């Protein structure tokens, strides 16, 4: 049976992906902007809410930060696991789409 948290939103997928390295909130916003060639621009309030939610789910964790004003986060094992499941789901989707000639 599929994990009840799937599918992920594009925002959550990108945040988990970029948090494979430790980043603060705005760092994640910039990195996602860069990786998506400017297609995915996450606003401050949306990023803050997403981080709160991912912390609650324990998919990311806070790691020590030199900067007192900016908390730094990184993906957890649970987060990596869900990211893997979601990637498999999308790969399957693409495989099916390929069969239809897309």
């Amino acid at each position, binding site marked *: 049976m599929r994990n009840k948290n799937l599918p992920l*939103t594009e925002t959550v997928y990108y945040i988990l992906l970029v948090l494979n390295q430790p980043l603060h*909130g*705005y760092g994640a916003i910039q990195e996602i902007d860069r990786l998506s060639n400017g297609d995915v*621009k996450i*606003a401050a309030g*949306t990023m*803050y809410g997403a981080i709160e939610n991912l912390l609650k789910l324990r998919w990311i964790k806070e790691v020590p930060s030199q900067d007192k004003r*900016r908390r730094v986060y990184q993906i957890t094992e649970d987060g990596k696991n869900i990211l893997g499941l979601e990637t498999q789901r999308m790969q399957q989707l693409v495989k099916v789409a390929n069969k239809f000639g897309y």
Partner: protein
Amino acid sequence: MMRKFKLFLSLNTEEKWINLVQETGYRLVKVNPFLHIYTFENLNSKDDFNPYTRIDFHNENMSTSKYLDYVTIFSDSGWKLVYGSRHGGAQYFQQKDAQSPRDIFSDPESKNLPRKRFMNFAITYAILFFTDLFVFIQAGYFSWRNLFDLKSWYLTPGLWNMQGSTFWKAFLFETPFALLRSVFFLFFLAMGIYYILKAIVNGNDVRDSAVNNK
């Protein structure tokens, strides 16, 4: 400099009103959430950047360091905090310059979250005020019958049978006490109704946007 007093039932109407005022050549510089006073400043010249102000809402306390992190994400993204408190309530963010994004939320689900929190906050306060009201009535300080029967606010024996200046003296003497007795009741009643209206209007905003996004 311009000061305006205004009450709002929803975050959407409050945000719209602030931005309408700003469009006429002002910038929000101060908010007093207790007195509901908004202070605006004139923009310097006609080509001065005309900012948007957006509202986030929290119904929980944040630690000092968490609040600093929260405000910094906004600041890094081009939003200046006009007014806000780590103890919760509305947080007013204003665009720093023309490069700032148009909104503090980039998808409808996250834009809905503060509206939902505001609704829950309003429901809690409505329940609180109506509970107090109920306690007042149970304790016999006031009853619903008293509300519409102004004569019953006065307790001086035989007051309503007095004549001329004797009546007016006794009447005026007791009026402050009569008001004092009812003022708490009326205050709690008014606040209860105010918060119920807030909960309903914000609930509608949340529902409407959920329907529009489907």
